[in-house]
């Protein structure tokens, strides 16, 4: 088991390949909720094979409980595999949308703030901008902190997705 120590405990990233069938999400969510684990983010998407879906889950908690959750998830008939991945072996990425109010913030100010990040303005409405950012979770956290000072009206984040580097499967 590998995990990254976060401010509240351990943050774990688990990748699962699951059968594309009704009820799979509930079965997996139950493996977490039954043990009092809160899921921070959960991404379900198609995989390269249409019979299977890909899930990426981030959660915080003690490694022993998480090991149990992974073992219990692996027991599920609809789960092909469930693995935990760390930063060294896998690419992590996430997308965020920030709606920032225009009042007092010119486009050039915003562009100045975001230029150090993989981010861009994708909507320029009367009252607000929407900024799209792609990157690692910690980069998204940084920009979020900066933008909050300038008035974030809304925020949406996709949650982390991972892919293992090289020939190892995710």
């Amino acid at each position, binding site marked *: 088991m590998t995990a990254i120590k976060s401010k509240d405990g351990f943050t774990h990233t688990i990748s699962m390949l699951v059968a594309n069938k009704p009820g799979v999400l509930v079965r997996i969510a139950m493996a977490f909720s039954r043990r009092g684990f809160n899921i921070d983010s959960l991404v379900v998407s198609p995989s390269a094979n249409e019979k299977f879906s890909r899930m990426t889950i981030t959660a915080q908690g003690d490694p022993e409980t998480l090991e149990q959750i992974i*073992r219990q998830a692996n*027991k599920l*008939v609809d789960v092909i595999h469930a693995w935990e991945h760390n930063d060294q072996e896998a690419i992590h990425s996430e997308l965020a949308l920030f709606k920032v109010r225009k009042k007092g913030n010119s486009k050039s100010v915003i562009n100045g703030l975001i230029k150090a990040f993989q981010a861009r303005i994708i909507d320029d409405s009367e009252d607000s901008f929407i900024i799209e950012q792609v990157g690692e979770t910690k980069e998204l956290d940084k920009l979020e902190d900066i933008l909050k000072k300038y008035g974030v009206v809304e925020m949406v984040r996709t949650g982390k997705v991972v892919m293992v580097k090289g020939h190892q499967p995710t």
Partner: protein
Amino acid sequence: MTGAEALIKCLENQGVEYIFGYPGGAVIPIFDALVNSKIKLILVRHEQGATHMADGYARATGKPGVVCVTSGPAATNAITGIMTAMMDSIPMIVLTGQTITPLLGKDAFQETDTFSVSMPVVKHNYLVKKANEIPRIVKEAFYITQTGRPGPVLIDLPKDTTAGEFTASTLDPEMDIPGYKLPAKIKSVDIKAFAKQFKNSKKPLLLVGHGAVISKAHKEVLAFAEKIKAPVATTLLGKGAFPESHPLSLGMIGMHGTAYSNKALIGCDLICSIGSRWDDRVNTNNMEFCLGAKKLHIDIDQGEINKIVKPDSYLIGDAKEILTELLKHVDPLETGTWLKEMDFYKKEFPLHYSNEHGLTAQYVIDLAYQITKGKSIVVTDVGQHQMWAAQFYRTDYPDSWLSSGGAGTMGYGFPAALGAQFGRPKDHVLAIVGDGGFQMTFYELATASIHKLPVKVLVIDNKYLGMVRQWQELFFDNRLSGVDLEGNPDFVKLGEAYGIKGFHIDNVEKAQEIMTQALNYKGPAIIHAEVIKEDNVFPMIPAGKSAYHMIIEPPTEKLERPSGST
């Protein structure tokens, strides 16, 4: 052909003999298809009875028990029995009716979301969407329920899928369960490494659980124990995996286990679990569990590894297969002193009882053991009588001890005994139940009577919920709350109301004679044993305390309230 007819054909192809069921609107097409089937339908009196019967059938035969009930309240009534089967790893197929697919989720009559309600208490479940899926789902369900670590599988069948036309070309399609994982074949290098762990142990202890029973590993357990000369303790559900009359047997271990088995737990330098899950009835306190001992774990379920105990070494796979291989690589151990120590404890702290205050449950159970020569299939309910039965009805044969272990489901015993008798009609089946639990499911007396099942129901009647009363006496200053069962029926007359012969015992003098008559009676019989009201099960390890705190004799001082779960 309808979906229901296809379903029944698939069940026939799986070798199903019995369906334990109760009809209703959403399963009428299935019951209709059963009219022309060779499968025998057993009409129960309540859906909980059906699931426990199927469970008893499965435990007694090793084959999956099959249940068919309707939607809504029938499905929820079945849940307790499904949960019981799940906790004890029992193969069971549960077919539930459901409203028609266009009405799913629209609060139709007798609709409940059975798929979701059952999800936490099944190994796997299905909601059928089309009649043509039925053969694949049934095939997968039977495969999943029996292989690996067994467990119940539920199939929810909307009525339009069973009443509708079946148009697929085959009743034997390919399965589609790529995520279903069975343990890989164990490498000989791993077996050898595991076998090495036993080397130099002078005080080994084998902890044998239900997994060894399910795996039918009793011969291998015996050979292994005899080869390494290790004493064997079983869990409640491990009874039968090792003959309890064998000199190496320490009987049942744990909260109400024998004093000597728990002494072994304290004294051992190595403990090897074979198909037990270190449950809190055995490992009552993880911090003080087998201190200093090497811990080894054999289990078919990878999910059990590191769950409670972090083993020094483990093997994931079938107990019978693993022991067969392991036997080739272990040598006899120097256990002479250890076995002498065990013999000392056996003599010093034997299981015992006395009838000086009147007829005891222990005596009645001991009589049953002697009269039946230990050859009955014993099925218990849950509570004091269950522990006394575990202690005093020694189990020497596999598949002859049926009890709700993990779930502790009151009401299990009697219907499960009927299921066992259906599965093994030639064997002597003895249900040992309490007055509390029996009243939860005695409605199945009708089923026993109609089918003339010669089950003997020994009702241990102390007019109390004895186990809870025992806790209240020992830990709650004898403040009795909600445990008084005064108002019990006359159980002999209750049997007679269903046409079942009744026997009554209320004194020591006549007990042997009446028990002999009753146990040899040809048909179903109730044996109503009125025993002394206030008696406690000992030894006892208070919940949450370790084996160091075992109470062997009735305590004379006040005990603190237990910190453990229950």
